[in-house]
């Protein structure tokens, strides 16, 4: 796969990579967010390239999860949150009044740290979103369910027990089930918030392999504390600290020769 063509913006932000708008899936401009009077994100501007894996890394409280949550409007119901700036998905403002939050979340799926399958069968978990959408024959729905479970690399393990409870699966299988449930409704972007931090090493590798395979048709954004994981699976890495975007570069460069001392100190485990 050819690399996305890169372009650097002004010399002041030499440590922040930019992408042409036509190669980007998400564009974030001047985004600030505060919980009450506590600032969490401070004037972030970056683009997320389409069909690539972008990792957000940084110390606890740096704002990486907050940023991920803004991308499918999980903060909407929190009255304390004050937000400025904009997030464009394929050129459309996700906060525009005419945007349906349900539709946005179909296009921008999210997977959380601990697997959260619904208390129902494996089959029904994946069918859940499709039933909500309605308008599909049972046959068509079952085709999509098989496709989603195959895409999530779970089909071979569950095809003989689709009616079994989702809770009977192991943690790693549950996480892949949740990914299948998200894939079933046909998202363009998949947000992954520490998707493997509650899993054993083998399950973690399966999730990482899955991430690599999914980028052929999805844009993936990964938040992780595990820097080796970011280094293994992502194409681009953004380092955040205290709500600011410090450095954003191809993963190859960021982990071998970061431009800024702040990045170097964090990824090599030095005292700041």
């Amino acid at each position: 796969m050819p690399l996305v063509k890169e372009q650097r913006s002004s010399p002041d932000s030499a440590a922040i990579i930019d992408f042409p708008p036509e190669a980007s899936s998400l564009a974030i401009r001047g985004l600030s967010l505060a919980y009450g009077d506590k600032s969490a994100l401070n004037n972030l501007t970056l683009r997320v390239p389409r069909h690539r894996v972008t990792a957000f890394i940084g110390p606890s409280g740096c704002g990486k999860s907050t940023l991920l949550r803004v991308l499918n409007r999980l903060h909407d119901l929190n009255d304390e949150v004050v937000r400025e700036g904009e997030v464009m998905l394929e050129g459309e403002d996700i906060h525009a009044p005419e945007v349906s939050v349900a539709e946005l979340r179909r296009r921008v799926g999210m997977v959380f740290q601990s697997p959260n399958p619904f208390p129902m069968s494996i089959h029904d978990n994946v069918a859940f979103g499709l039933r909500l959408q309605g308008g599909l024959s049972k046959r068509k729905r079952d085709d999509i369910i098989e496709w989603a479970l195959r895409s999530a690399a779970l089909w071979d393990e569950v095809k003989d027990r689709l009616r079994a409870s989702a809770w009977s699966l192991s943690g790693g299988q549950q996480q892949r089930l949740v990914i299948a449930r998200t894939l079933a409704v046909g998202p363009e972007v998949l947000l992954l918030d520490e998707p493997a931090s509650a899993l054993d090493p083998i399950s973690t590798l399966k999730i990482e392999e899955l991430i690599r395979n999914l980028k052929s048709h999805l844009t993936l954004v990964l938040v992780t504390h595990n820097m080796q994981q970011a280094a293994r699976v992502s194409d681009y890495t953004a380092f955040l600290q205290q709500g600011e975007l410090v450095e954003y570069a191809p993963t190859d460069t960021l982990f071998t020769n970061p431009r800024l001392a702040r990045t170097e100190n964090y990824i090599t485990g030095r005292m700041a």
Partner: protein
Amino acid sequence: MDITSDIHSQHISRQFNQELDELKTHLMAMGGLVEKQVQDAVGALLDRDSELGQRVVDNDRAVNDMQIKIDEECTQVLARRQPTASDLRLVLAVIRAASDLERIGDEASKIARNAIDLIESDSGNRGFVEVRMISEHVRRMVRDALTSFARLDTELALKLVHEDDEVDNEYGSAMRSLMTFMMEDARSISPVLSVMWILRALERIGDHANNLAEYVVYLVKGLDIRHTDPEDLDKDMFERNP
């Protein structure tokens, strides 16, 4: 970003600091031994001391052992720490440097063996002036390369990259004058060939010192300058690190 010499001792994990520190210490110890080997090998020839020559040949084993030890330590750091950025570059630079030092050790041993042959055949001292001159030059290069490694001094390292060309020139003209000896007197062919092997070994030591200097630039700046024309280097460094 350029790194400074205290950078590898600032980790939250003190154990990690210590491991990286040991890598550097062991590399410097190996460098010191190798430097001594070169000095003794050339000294054996110039002072006609075949016992000293034999000691150099015997000591090569110690150099090899040090390389293996350093490689093992680097493997451990890679496996246990998964180093990144300047830490990763340090480990890679140390592995490469140990390999070049080991080969300098091999060249020293080669010089010593040829010196023993020359001393035992008692065949005059044609070419010794050239050996003395070039050996002083390359020994200084090895010393400076190790110093630049210890201090992370890229200026000194870059100076060495340019110096290697001078050694190559000196080597070329020494070979031409030795060729004249051989043409003038067929009986001198065998001893002069031994001197040529020694000069060749010294020239190779200069190349290895040059490699060491390149690793320093890689370690400090993250730039791989191997296979870059020395003429383009200064410009390149300035452009990439304004």
